[in-house]
């Protein structure tokens, strides 16, 4: 029986209240205001509030913010810790590291003029700015589906609330709404569940390399004042990762004695026994990192996948009736490990393209072709172009040679070497068979610097209404045990940073268990499952992590 749904109409609907989505919404209102017209702009956000699902390093390049809200300082934007010093280390082993002399650091890793921030706080502030301009923001409402009619996207459908695990409608069941719009901007972040379907439906990636990803794990610590150096930025490569599973690490000193520490693991890793969470916990024991954390207190934990394919993997960004913006498209600059400023810029450019049409009386539902044109002419594209060889060099040459290549490419040629390295192997195809791989042992957490998985998930304040359908769908429920277990020792047990997936043995028989209520919405399973059998969909709105200042 078709569900009777309420309908509301807007000029533009934005899916996701992150840096890209909110920048787009703000830009739309600014442009309408300039000519004294009204544009109805609505932002839906699956998190329980704006910022609840935001997780980023973050060292923030204010380029896009300067363009969007030039007087952000007066308006109290939470950019409180200018970068005071950059340090880069090659970690050689569990207790050795060499500091890279400044001269040898690739240009993209210099951070003068940038800020150490909490993106969660910045996004909350952007939300306030957007609301002050009349943007309607609805946290707790997930976009479950998009409306596709007459060859164009015409809005979204929000998720039903109050559906039980077995699918029946509980007391208080509230069907989702149709939110219709002339243009819909998808800003779900890396591997958005609607973005993924749009890319497939409109074949947006036909001419690009597969997208490449990494998983970032992050903790927030409160450390003793003596060790706190506001604005200090520490980056690292090497241990605990190795040549076959590249990635990097960070430790950023924020304000208020807070330090953000994290490990980024490329999802192109090949050993199915690798557990990003275990590597992260181990990493914090390195003397370079430990010296800051010892005597401190962990106050938050979280994880999120990120796009890193860059320009080579960037899909077409428009389709009839809408556009992909920010990491939903994949605008992050991996050589800088920064995506917030380029995400904001892409949102602003999509907004400019949409506003141009709408303010001229356009009816929407067409392709916003001037958005990719504007993007191509922008500094955000230029940054991505210059770093296009970074990720693929690391994959092709391994970490050491890759790093040497990157140094020559970035500092010698400004990223303008006359060729492009491609990496056409998707991340889900890189796992070796378990039988050919080395088992990895992770040290027992000490409860001071390192912690077990479940107490970590607890620190993400993750919550889902218990009685609701599982939001991690298996295309074929038999694959985890029939194929993934013998071939790869079911890697979901290890790549998931929240303990969602388990293989449990009952009477000696393995069973695949999904603890969906633990899910921190990082999307790694959707990316890394070797059989591409797991589909992440949005759970009931308001569920997921409740990050305060990640």
């Amino acid at each position, binding site marked *: 029986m078709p569900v009777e749904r*309420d309908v*509301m109409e807007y000029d533009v609907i934005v899916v996701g209240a992150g840096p890209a989505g909110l920048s787009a919404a703000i830009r739309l209102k600014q442009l309408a205001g300039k000519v004294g017209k009204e544009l109805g702009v609505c932002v839906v956000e699956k998190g*329980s*509030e704006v*910022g*609840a699902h935001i997780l980023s390093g973050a060292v923030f390049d204010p380029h896009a913010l300067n363009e969007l809200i030039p007087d952000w300082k007066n308006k109290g934007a939470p950019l409180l810790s200018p970068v005071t010093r950059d340090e880069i280390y090659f970690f050689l082993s569990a207790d050795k590291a060499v500091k890279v002399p400044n001269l040898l650091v690739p240009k993209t890793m210099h951070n003068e003029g940038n800020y150490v921030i*909490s993106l*969660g*706080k910045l996004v*909350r502030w952007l939300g306030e700015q957007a609301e002050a301009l009349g943007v*309607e923001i*609805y946290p*707790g*409402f997930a976009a479950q589906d998009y409306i596709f009619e007459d060859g164009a996207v015409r809005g979204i459908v*929000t998720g039903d*609330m*109050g559906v039980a695990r077995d699918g029946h409608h509980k*007391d*208080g069941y*509230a069907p989702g*709404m149709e*939110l219709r719009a002339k243009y819909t901007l998808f800003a779900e972040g890396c591997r958005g569940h609607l973005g993924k379907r749009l890319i497939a439906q409109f074949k947006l990636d036909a001419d690009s390399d597969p997208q490449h990803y990494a998983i970032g794990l992050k903790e927030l610590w*409160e450390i003793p004042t003596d060790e706190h150096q506001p604005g200090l930025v520490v980056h690292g490569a090497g241990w605990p990762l190795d040549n076959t599973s590249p990635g990097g690490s960070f430790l950023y000193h924020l304000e208020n*004695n807070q330090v953000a520490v994290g490990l980024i693991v490329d999802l192109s890793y090949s050993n199915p026994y690798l557990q990003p969470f275990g590597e992260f916990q181990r990493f914090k024991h390195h003397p370079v990192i430990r010296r800051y954390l010892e005597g401190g207190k962990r*106050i938050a934990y979280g994880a999120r996948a990120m796009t890193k394919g860059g320009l080579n993997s960037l899909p077409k960004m428009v389709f009839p009736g809408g556009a992909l913006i920010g990491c939903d498209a994949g605008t992050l600059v991996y050589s800088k490990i920064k995506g917030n400023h380029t995400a904001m810029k892409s949102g602003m450019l999509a907004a400019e393209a949409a506003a141009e049409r709408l303010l001229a009386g356009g009816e929407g539902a067409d392709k916003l072709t001037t958005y990719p044109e504007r993007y191509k002419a922008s500094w955000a594209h230029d940054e991505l172009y210059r770093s296009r060889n970074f990720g693929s060099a690391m994959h092709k040459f391994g970490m050491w040679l890759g790093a040497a290549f990157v140094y020559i490419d970035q500092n010698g040629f400004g990223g303008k070497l006359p060729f492009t390295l491609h990496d056409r192997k998707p991340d889900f195809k890189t796992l070796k068979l378990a039988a050919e791989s080395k088992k990895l042992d992770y040290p027992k957490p000490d*409860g001071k610097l390192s912690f077990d998985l*479940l107490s970590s998930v*607890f*620190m993400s*304040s*993750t*919550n889902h209404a218990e009685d609701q359908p599982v939001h991690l769908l298996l295309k074929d429920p038999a694959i985890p045990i029939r194929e993934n277990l013998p071939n790869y020792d079911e890697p979901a047990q290890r790549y998931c940073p929240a*303990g969602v997936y*388990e293989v*449990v043995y*009952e*009477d000696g028989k393995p069973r695949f*268990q999904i*603890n969906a209520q633990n899910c921190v919405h990082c999307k790694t399973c959707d990316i890394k499952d070797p059989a591409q059998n797991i589909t992440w969909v949005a759970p009931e709105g308001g569920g997921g992590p*409740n990050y*305060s*200042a990640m």
Partner: protein
Amino acid sequence: MKVLVSVKRVADSNVRVQVKPDGSGVVTDGVKMSMNPFDEIAMEEAVRLKEKGAVTEIVAVTVGGDKSQETLRTALAFGADRAVHVKEDGDIQPLAAAQALAAVFKKEDAKLFLLGKQAIDDDANQTGQMVAGLLDLPQATFASKIEIDGDKAKVTREVDAGLETLEVDLPAIITADLRLNEPRYLKLPDIIKAKKKPLEAVSFADLGVTPGAGLKVVKIASPPTRNQGEMLVMGARESGIAAPPPIRRTAEMFKTVDELIAKLKEKSLV
């Protein structure tokens, strides 16, 4: 019949609250704030009473800073007809809140005052009782069922011995317990409508209230961390009952009582 419902803005129940390093309170900067869950239940009950026809008007009230207007908007989205914001930026003690709420109740000339039994931030559990005292009106606390019958309300309360049913004359103060109802999901159109509903701001002075104080917070500290326990499970597999995942992952499993006792002896626990 007019009903007044008070709602308080508190740190969301899913958030892990952190104590400020100087022990002066808890960190609320950047923390998700929500309507106190017990107040949500009181609000839901008011809406249900209105849907049943026992109530004609619902007024939501809060005491707090500017941001607590968000909580009033939530109350309006639930179904309150209008809202009163008693604006006070500083620290608000239960007595001051009760004085303000009592003054609003009098001013509104409402018949029924519904509150959550306690707020989940300070767990003081005294505002409803003090309002009743200040107004010298009957009170029924920890309600798990409310029936309105003319000028009386029949209230069922969960007590240690079972269920107790009280009858109070209206006007009265009733505080809501967990099992009174399950609050509804807010719908988008209701959230939008709530933005346009009337919201009036008043001050303590407007209400003629001199806020009482008498409590001094000496220190706020986290509970001491406990040493991690160890789980010893017996017979889980044999009985066919699967232990829940955290236990399964960490527990040491025993097949027989003797094995278990031997382990306990080893740890000098028996």
